[in-house]
């Protein structure tokens, strides 16, 4: 019940706001903030009561919803969803504070924001396919409205594009969900859409599971977004208001990666294994392509948006490494990206509020007049490019380590993203913050105020916390990941003779003989030394 309460608390807040007078802006904002803060604190309580040692669902509730079809209201949290859940309440709170200066229809804005929060939380706790689908579609609506009403000049185009991309993807997912529902009914005689039940009992042929996998893949890959389904993201980000971008980057994209971990991997382990090369290459292309395109952007938000494409490529790569390093890295990178990119969007929003432009060429020399802002921006930028000691590095390294176990070439290609990240972030930083303060419009820009510091400071604390002591966060999903890995471990599907043992050492067998041969050829080692 507790989990249900926390999930629907923001929605309750939204309902309260409906009955408040439109004119009373400050009361509206305070009420919204009160609900957001309360929700965050309560979700922290979930975390402290969470049992790290088990992969089982916790805080669960399972009651019948539509009895005739066997659809239940089944919710619960495990290690994979807990942190995403807490991050959602956390970012909602930050977003409410960051939206303090919204002038247009503040009441409706806050209603949309709180409703969105419930929608997103619902996605992470749903343990029934239909319920999941309902929440999945439900959160689209407030997001669509936030972009479409409070967005920039091309907001209509962007919001429709956003909506259509995601809707198209999820329709195929619906088909797959229905197929599974009927299939389960046929094979086991139970009419249910329960995710845990399906995970344990789904038994389909490899061919069928590949089709189903593709259907889910499309829905989630668009959401993530993976190359080449990413083009909705820059448009949506550029047009969305600051808080919209923060939620979009911080939580909405994570629904995609969450979907892979909750559905694709456990439902279809063998199909997932078969598709590893495809996903890996798409992710690698995404990493490099996103970084390259980010480098030449003229709009700050577009740059951050494309950098998201690059970062999410890392997360996908980690998930499809199918080993504990990769998946744990991907999960912590989920959080890292949520923190760093949200902070970047907030920071971009700060200059946008002052200058109403985000063009890089309009700025330059801000370090001189906005020292606090510069320091914050620098820290966040460095965290985004994965400087060790900050959060990004922990995730990135584990992901790369994970994929290295699978294929050295993929790891090398993905690691090159690390170089490119430095290029686009530092070049942008130089053009915005350094150099001479030439543009007269920038002369009297104010440094960050207290409210803005309050939105950024917690994110910066988290950046160092995760960078230096990530165990606080990583131990929550240890058990769940180990359980998941035991199901999807590629060794389950490999023919036996490939599990050879090389003489180099216990770990050397991870390098496949073909790789070894190709390396030999490339190096042209002389036979005699």
């Amino acid at each position, binding site marked *: 019940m507790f989990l249900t309460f926390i999930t629907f608390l923001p929605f309750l807040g939204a309902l309260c706001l409906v009955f408040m007078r439109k004119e009373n802006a400050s009361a509206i904002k305070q009420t919204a903030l009160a609900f957001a803060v309360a929700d965050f604190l309560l979700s922290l309580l979930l975390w402290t009561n969470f049992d790290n040692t088990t992969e089982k669902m916790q805080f669960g509730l399972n009651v019948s919803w539509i009895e005739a079809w066997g659809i239940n209201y089944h919710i619960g949290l495990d290690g994979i969803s807990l942190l995403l859940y807490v991050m959602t309440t956390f970012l909602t709170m930050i977003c409410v504070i960051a939206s303090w200066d919204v002038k247009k229809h503040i009441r409706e804005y806050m209603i949309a924001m709180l409703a969105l929060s419930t929608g997103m939380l619902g996605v992470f706790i749903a343990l029934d396919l239909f319920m999941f689908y309902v929440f999945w579609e439900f959160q689209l609506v407030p997001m669509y409205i936030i972009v479409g009403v409070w967005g920039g000049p091309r907001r209509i185009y962007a919001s429709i594009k956003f909506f259509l991309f995601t809707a198209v993807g999820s329709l195929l997912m619906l088909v797959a969900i229905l197929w599974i529902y009927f299939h389960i009914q046929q094979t086991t005689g139970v009419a249910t859409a329960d995710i845990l039940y399906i995970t344990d009992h789904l038994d389909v042929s490899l061919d069928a599971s590949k089709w189903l996998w593709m259907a889910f893949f499309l829905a989630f890959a668009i959401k993530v977004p993976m190359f080449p389904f990413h083009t909705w993201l820059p448009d949506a980000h550029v047009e969305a208001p600051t808080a919209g971008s923060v939620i979009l980057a911080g939580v909405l994209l994570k629904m995609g990666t969450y979907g892979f971990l909750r559905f694709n991997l456990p439902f279809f382990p063998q199909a997932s294994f078969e598709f590893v090369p495809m996903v890996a290459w798409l992710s690698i292309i995404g990493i490099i392509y996103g970084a390259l*395109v980010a480098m030449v952007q003229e709009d700050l938000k577009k740059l951050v948006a494309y950098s998201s494409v690059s970062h999410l490529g890392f997360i996908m790569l980690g998930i499809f490494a199918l*080993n504990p390093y990769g998946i744990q890295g991907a999960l912590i990178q989920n959080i890292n990206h949520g923190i760093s990119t949200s902070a970047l969007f907030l920071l971009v929003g700060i200059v946008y509020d002052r200058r109403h432009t985000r063009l890089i060429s309009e700025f330059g020399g801000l370090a001189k007049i906005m020292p606090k802002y510069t320091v914050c921006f620098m820290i966040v930028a460095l965290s985004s490019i994965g400087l*060790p000691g900050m959060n990004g590095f922990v995730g990135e390294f584990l992901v790369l380590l994970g994929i290295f176990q699978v294929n050295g070439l993929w790891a090398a290609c993905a690691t090159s993203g690390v170089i490119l990240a430095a290029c686009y972030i530092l070049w942008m930083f130089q053009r915005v913050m350094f150099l001479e303060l030439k543009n007269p419009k920038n002369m009297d820009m104010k440094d960050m105020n207290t409210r803005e510091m309050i939105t950024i400071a917690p994110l910066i604390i988290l950046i160092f916390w995760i960078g230096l002591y990530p165990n606080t966060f990583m131990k929550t999903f240890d058990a769940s990941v180990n359980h998941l890995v035991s199901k999807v471990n590629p060794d389950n599907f490999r023919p036996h003779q490939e599990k050879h043992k090389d003489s180099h050492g216990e*770990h050397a067998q991870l*390098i496949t003989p073909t790789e070894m041969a190709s*390396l030999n050829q490339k*190096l042209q080692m002389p036979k005699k030394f």
Partner: protein
Amino acid sequence: MLLKLTCLVPLFPLIGSIINGFFGLKIGKNAVGLIACGSMALSFLTSILIYIGYLMLPEGQHIYEQVVWSWFGAGDFTVDFGFQIDPLTLVMMFVVTGVGLIIHVYAIGYMHEEYSFYRFFAYFNLFASAMLLLVMGNNFLLMFIGWEGVGCCSYFLIGYYFEKKSACDAGTKAFVVNRVGDFAFLLAVMYIFNVFGTIDFSDVMHAAPDKLIYGGEIVTIITMLLFVGATGKSAQIPLYTWLPDAMEGPTPVSALIHAATMVTAGVYMVVRCSALFNLSPMTMMVVAGIGGLTAIMAATIGMAQYDIKRVLAYSTVSQIGYMFLACGVGAYTAAIFHLVTHAFFKACLFLGSGSVIHGIHGEQDMRKMGGLKSHMPVTYWTFVVSTLAIAGIFPLSGFFSKDEILYHSLMDGNIIFWGMGVSAAMLTAFYMFRLVFMTFHGESRVDPSVHPHESPKVMTMPLVILAGLATIGGLLGIPLFHGWHILHNWLEPVLHFDLAHALHQSEHMLHEAGRHAPSWAHLLTPKEHNIWIEVLLMIFSLGVAITGIFGAYMFYIKRPDLPDKVIEGQWGYDLVQNKYYIDELYDESIVQPTVEGSKLLWKECDAKAIDGAVNGTANVIGWFSRQAQVFQSGFVRNYALFIVVGFISLLLVMF
């Protein structure tokens, strides 16, 4: 126990950095300077205590490890936030904290007029902290925190004058080029984990001979990747281009970061991983070759530069090339020896050049100097001492360390390596004295409105101390008699390598894999230390150095008209003066195509191809719906017609 203090050493500068960074503007310049230098002094004193503690370790224990907390992990991969104290680390700790302290003191004088004094010291202290992490970390990833941390501080400090475009560009360039090296380093770490199942230095180095085949592919790839990492940080071919540009930073930065400590991190790393490098003769050849080549190439460029700091920058590149040459022939002690002496004399040279620049109000062009000897005597004499040291004149420190490298490059390497080293030595003596003569001797070419003056005590005292160290630093290792070689004996536990054991293990592994082991017998013939060859070589290289100095004397004192005549119309000179056009080459072949290609990707691929496909789909659907609209006319008679047509077609199909 004293060793328990280990974690305090990097902590002090970190705290200093935080205090200065947050409150520096409020507490005033004196307090900032005091905190910065105080934290370094505390670090230095703690290092001494740790040294004493290390000496008290029981017999046979050469390494002390301290795990502060468990950093992160997944599956069977774990990495600790842990430090290790061993002889090599102690040497580096003393260099970093000792030389660092001296340069911090100097910087108080040099930076005194700056408004953002506090910002400088916040970065400077942060750098010291990161550098200490680098040398004290007990595993590859903790080293990597320091490794990227120093790179990051270097980025801040190069771009300290952030309103200058050239400074910003130089900072970004340094960071990005370093990242290329870091990319390789990261891959190496992953590969090491793959092979060893751990990334702790002591475990990896201990297990190396048992897990890696001598001369095998795996160890070659790992060490090559590590070396690429080192070339980035230590400015070697092909990644050296960032270092000369890095001279945009304030001079104390150039002295501490781009001469004494950070840029030698690559050498430290190679020595730290000597157990791996020893197993790959191919990588060793590459290391020595790149080192020797860099030594010569940078020295030739250094001969034709006019910016006083750029000459010193190329000289640094060249000297680090020496260190890699030493590593490549297996003379790790010599590499560390030269690293230490180089830290002394090069820091002194940079600080001296800073004193000159300070004395003539920011001028860095040597063509606008000259005759400064009488105006700044302390600077002059300390500068000359250090120049003699770098040129390798007996009995200054550079003489011993350089000769040890040259000796080993002949005896353990081959005549080509030795030839590279000797020619670089001659060039070094030449361009360094060219610098001295152009700056301090001859007619004054200083702008008449400027009145050159000696720097304050706070700046000259560090010069004197460093010049003193540059003079006596050679006592650490007098090469003739190996019993006297303090450094060699000291580093022995770290560098100990049993080739016979390694080869035996490799044979065993190859045999198990069903492969035939090549004959390695010739590797095991012991090499004798020939004292006479060494003495001969010493005399020879002394002669070479004197020749170089004499050349510089002829060109810049005796016949000042000669240089212009010689270089006139020489394409070789153009080539050298323009740094072999390497920067232009990189720009044309890598930077520009990447930027242009990215623009193309964005405009063509993203906007046209992908969005085009999406919009195209939408349009096609739209077109179909418009066609289908015809059928939805709303007239009952049309629907009736369709029903009739449909019925007839159905009948036709069925029969």
